[in-house]
């Protein structure tokens, strides 16, 4: 192995440790931390790592500060301010979501809340979101679910009970794809009472909230 390759292999290992293991309260690593640990060529290290992760169906995801996603190739300064995560590259199947502790109702509620907030230009009152969820989820669950989405970092609530999208949605959800698929999806009505099927009961045990 040439010396140059060896250097990049070692930097890639270091980047893997930093990205996979949670270092702060929130997962992910800030660009400037990677810059400090790996040097100014850390974007290249991340590219190599991303390429390597492809075969594992994972990817290095970059979330730019305050959603200022650069149109062209981002400058090092912009990358330093961005946050990097390792996320799933492909899609989860509904069965897999249950394995990681999500009930179908909770996930549908999250999808609805996120889509609704996007449709309202990134801000919607909690009351409106609750009313929307109330149509298909039992009333007692709605408030608990929204609190859970807030706790996980998908939504953010301000003092005026306005809901916004939080860091986890920015990191995990391809908002354009969500809206596009929602608009092109075939509509299908579901009755509100359809909540307690055997599958969701089973998933309840797995859910840790």
């Amino acid at each position, binding site marked *: 192995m040439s010396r140059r390759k060896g250097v990049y292999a070692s930097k890639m290992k270091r980047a893997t440790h930093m990205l*996979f*293991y*949670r270092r702060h309260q929130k*997962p*992910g690593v800030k660009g400037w931390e990677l810059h400090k640990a790996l040097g100014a060529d850390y974007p290249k290290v991340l590219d190599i790592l991303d390429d390597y992760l492809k075969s594992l169906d*994972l*990817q290095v*995801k970059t979330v730019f500060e305050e959603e200022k996603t650069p149109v062209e190739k981002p400058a090092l300064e912009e990358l330093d301010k961005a946050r990097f*995560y*390792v*996320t*799933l*590259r*492909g*899609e*989860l*199947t*509904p069965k897999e*979501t249950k394995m*990681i502790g999500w009930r*179908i*109702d909770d*996930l*549908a509620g*999250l*999808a*609805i809340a*996120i*889509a*609704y907030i*996007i*449709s*309202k*230009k990134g801000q919607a009152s909690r009351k409106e979101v609750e009313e*929307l969820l109330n*149509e*298909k989820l039992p009333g007692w669950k709605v408030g608990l679910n929204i609190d859970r989405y807030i706790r996980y970092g998908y939504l953010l609530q301000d003092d005026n009970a306005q809901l916004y999208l939080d860091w*986890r949605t920015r*990191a*995990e*959800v*391809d*908002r*354009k*794809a*969500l*809206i596009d*698929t*929602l*608009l092109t*999806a*075939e*509509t*299908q*009505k*579901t009755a509100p009472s*359809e909540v307690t099927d055997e599958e969701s009961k089973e998933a309840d045990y797995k859910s840790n909230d």
Partner: protein
Amino acid sequence: MSSKTEQKLGREKLQRIIEMCIAIEAHAVDPFMLDVDDIIKVVKEYFPRWEKPEDLNLDAETIHHLASSIKLQSEWIKHRSTSLYTDPFLLEEKITQAGKEVMVGLFLKAWHPVVELEQISIHSLAEAMRYWETLLPLRERWKELAAPKVEIGTATRDELIRERILGDKVFSDELENYWQELKEKVKEKGHDGKILYWDFVGAETYEETAQRAFLTSFLITYGYATLEIHPLEEEIFIKPFETPIAKISTQQSISIPIAVTHDNWQKWKRGEPD
């Protein structure tokens, strides 16, 4: 038309523009209802006639609100031009009609959860053991305080007042008296039904001044009086109400910090402007 009438008309026009902009900021009116060129023409037309600080202030306020409305127009265009824009009604309709399974199915197409691991390492174990070794036992860290034993007894109201645990008057009575004092002082020394804040609050000693400022804050909070602030002149007036305004506590209130520092008190004593 006389200059005064023109100024009056100009003021009214600016006031109307401000009201319109406020309605836009509150999302009650479409931002594109505003004809920016027309407004700028009006502002330009009257600007040379403004002499008084209040008029210049009104002019600045108009520009400020106009800028906010233009910002809203620009945000609207930006949002419409992004690929994320979709008609909210259409989207809402889709959300309401989509079944749970459909919703989950399409969410899974757009959801790429973060991968994260939590695992203890040899390094952190070693660090934790070092910490544990140097940690003092609880009995040494939380040594009992040698508090003197006191017999349980009773205290009279006078004793509590002497100890400064209670005030010598019921607070509401004290506030009522203070309000009467404010009204009298306004009659004696004030003008237009108001008095300079420091002329009312200021007292012989700094302690008394602080006490008066404390009571004044309650007068304002409980609707016995209000503050009038002239930012350009940097003057703050206090204005008593004839009867307490009850609805004040039901409206959204704002806090106005006023520094009652020893330096400010000395300046007031020397008769220097604040």
